[in-house]
């Protein structure tokens, strides 16, 4: 027994020392789970058609990604970070604390957020204000703020169907939820006189505007968009909130609601006329180019015509392409990486 233990200790010590010497050969990427399905495709392509190894990608969420990304320079730390929002000042500061001063921001495209229901049900025509009234935690009533009392869609607006309000959506930890409340609930809410009167403090008001009702009308379904699609097929009464790429893939079973008179289609999101969309980013640590093989090459692959151009393979996967101007800016940023 003792022999065995000493053998094991010796073996692990050997393995440890071996690991300390071995240099990292492949790129490491962390960050948003919304960007994950796109960057992984690019990584696979890069692994197949370049002399470099396939990058390793973890879906840690945007915030979690920056936390890892900004912890330092060196092999231990990731080279790229995916984000479904722009980097925050606090995150830039954190990076700067660890001597990461040069970060390239690559905007790779857009993602739309859709409210969809089963194709067997009637298609919804919604305005942002109606969605706010149906889903916010507090709504105005006779000049006062009350807990959301709407139970049916036609109570919100007579033009909507006589159906129970039932919406499946992501939990507060999700970037999709953040974007949804920011793009849909906040604009309808922040200038309502009832909110102005009840909560004078601007910061507090914004916070309250982001609250979603918790009485079972809005149902959190984890961060798995596939699960929401499955639930919509089973429950024809319900609506679901998820990313456009899932609508694109499941167009045969679910349909996206029309928001403010605009269909959630590829063209409408791309042109900006569909109201609920956000940019997707990939951030690169300049200091790692030269340290890890292939960093610059992968950044260039990501912004290539082959990937994010009008008919690129990422666009094929449901990424909404950038406008010409934005594309030029992104390419410029990628070209600057040393």
């Amino acid at each position, binding site marked *: *027994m003792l022999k*065995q*233990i000493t053998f*094991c200790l010796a*073996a*692990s010590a050997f*393995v*440890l020392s*071996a*690991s*300390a010497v*071995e240099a*990292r050969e*492949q790129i*490491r990427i962390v960050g948003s*789970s919304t960007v*994950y*399905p796109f960057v*992984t*495709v690019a*990584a*696979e392509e890069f*692994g197949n058609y370049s002399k470099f*190894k*396939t990058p*390793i*990608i*973890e*879906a840690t969420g945007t915030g979690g990604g920056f936390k890892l990304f900004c912890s330092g320079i060196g092999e*231990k730390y990731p080279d790229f970070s995916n984000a479904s929002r722009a980097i925050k000042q606090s995150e830039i500061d954190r990076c700067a604390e660890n001597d990461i001063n040069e970060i390239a921001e690559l905007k790779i495209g857009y993602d739309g957020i859709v409210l969809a229901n089963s*194709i067997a049900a009637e298609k919804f025509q919604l305005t942002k204000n109606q969605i706010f009234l149906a889903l916010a935690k507090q709504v105005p009533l006779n000049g006062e703020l009350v807990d959301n009392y709407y139970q049916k869609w036609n109570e919100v607006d007579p033009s909507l169907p006589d159906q129970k309000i039932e919406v499946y959506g992501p939990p507060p930890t999700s970037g999709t939820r953040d974007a949804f409340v920011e793009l849909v609930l906040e604009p309808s809410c922040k200038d309502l006189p009832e909110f102005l009167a009840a909560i004078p403090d601007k910061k507090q008001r914004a916070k309250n505007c982001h609250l979603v009702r918790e009485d079972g009308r809005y149902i959190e379904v984890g*961060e*798995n*968009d*596939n699960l929401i699609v499955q639930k919509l097929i089973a429950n024809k009464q319900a609506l679901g909130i998820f*990313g456009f*790429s*899932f609508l*694109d*893939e*499941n*167009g*045969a*079973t679910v*349909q996206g609601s029309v928001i403010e008179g605009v269909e959630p289609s590829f063209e409408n999101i791309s042109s900006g006329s569909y109201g609920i969309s956000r940019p997707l980013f990939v951030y690169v640590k300049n200091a790692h180019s030269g340290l890890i093989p292939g960093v610059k090459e992968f950044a260039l692959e990501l912004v290539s015509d082959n990937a994010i151009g009008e*008919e690129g393979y990422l666009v094929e*996967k*449901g990424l909404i392409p950038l406008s010409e101007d934005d594309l030029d800016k992104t390419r410029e940023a990628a070209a600057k990486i040393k």
Partner: protein
Amino acid sequence: MIKRTTKIAMKRAKKKKNPFKFKLGSSKKNQVHLARRHARERRFRVFGFSAIAASMIFLLVFFASIIADGYSAFTQAQLRIVVTFDQSLVEKGNYRKILQNSLKQQFPEAKGRKQRFMLYKLVSKGGVNSLRKLVDNNPQIIGETDQVWLPASSLIDMYVKGKTNNEVDESKRKIKDLQIKWLEELQANNSVRSVFNTAFFTNGDSREPEQAGILGSIMGSIFSIVVCMLISMSIGIGAAVYLEEFAPKNKLTDLIEVNINNLAAVPSIIFGLLALAIYLNFFGMPRSSSLVGGFALAMLVLPTIVIASRNALAAVPPSIRFAATALGATKVQVTLHHTIPYALPGILTGTILGVARALGETAPLLMIGMVAFVADVPTGILDPATSLPTQIYLWADSPELGFVEKTSACIIILLLILGIVNGTAAYIRKKFQYDW
């Protein structure tokens, strides 16, 4: 059981001249009482039986739905395409162009960029690699034209398997009418077939469902389980033997025992956090590697192994130890030559059950980066890897329709492996267990 107790009661009643306040068997009150007791017995049995039945039904529904979703992933549609191996293109290594040209030749009606793209999408991206392999294996094919079976894309695969909804408007679905028409043409020529999906067992992860395989995650699971077993068995059995056979019984060992039992109940994510803090941040071991995964899982199964091994050791009767000691064996000899061999089946069973648990864990691996897109199959314990359960987690979250069946198929494989592992444990227990 109930009959026996009634009999005893009757005997007693006869002996003691009816100690009960009623006459046995004849009193109406007694009959009601007896009937009630029998009814209670029946009810109890029905409850027990329905509990078993309910769990069996859950299990059956679970298996049935997984298998119904997943069995189709073991086949893959292939298309027979007439390929011209153009010499100059082969020399340039541009197999993609070879494939595209061949498709264009076979379906000359595809006009314009958009239609051609639709045409290229019939065949999997992996078809390019198949062609490359074909040429590498028989170079005499260069310059020739031959019929080649190539894997269909996931889109076509799903259509052939009947998993797409073709009723809805063309703009709402991924597969277009033109593609269906081409496919029907191929079907009419007997140029569509369904074969065993070997790629599923020989490929690593991929974002194209038809190319995604489980070899990478299986290798990751094997590597981390081997590391986990090496560490947890040596430390766990060592700790158990010392605690059971050598350690003095005092407050300190009591405290250790309580702590080990506590550790067995600690949520697995905490071991992940611990592994992140110690192995990754302190020792700087490589993130996502099965080495770290094995270390994290070892911490998870250690308490189970220690407890199981201690129980097995404690079950060896003291007479064995006394007899060996009486013959002049030292304490170490008693333990190594007698106690451990008798306890070994129990120790192994506990270890295997611990390993089965480790095989199915995701939470500790989440924190150390083993939930990641890793396309290359790992070749050693230092390579980045995933494991079977984390692969399931990743696929379940993918938007592509083709991943639904892959997820279920991966679950089937994991269940099979777990079944084999647990079966081995049961076999060892049955075969070698010593009944005192």
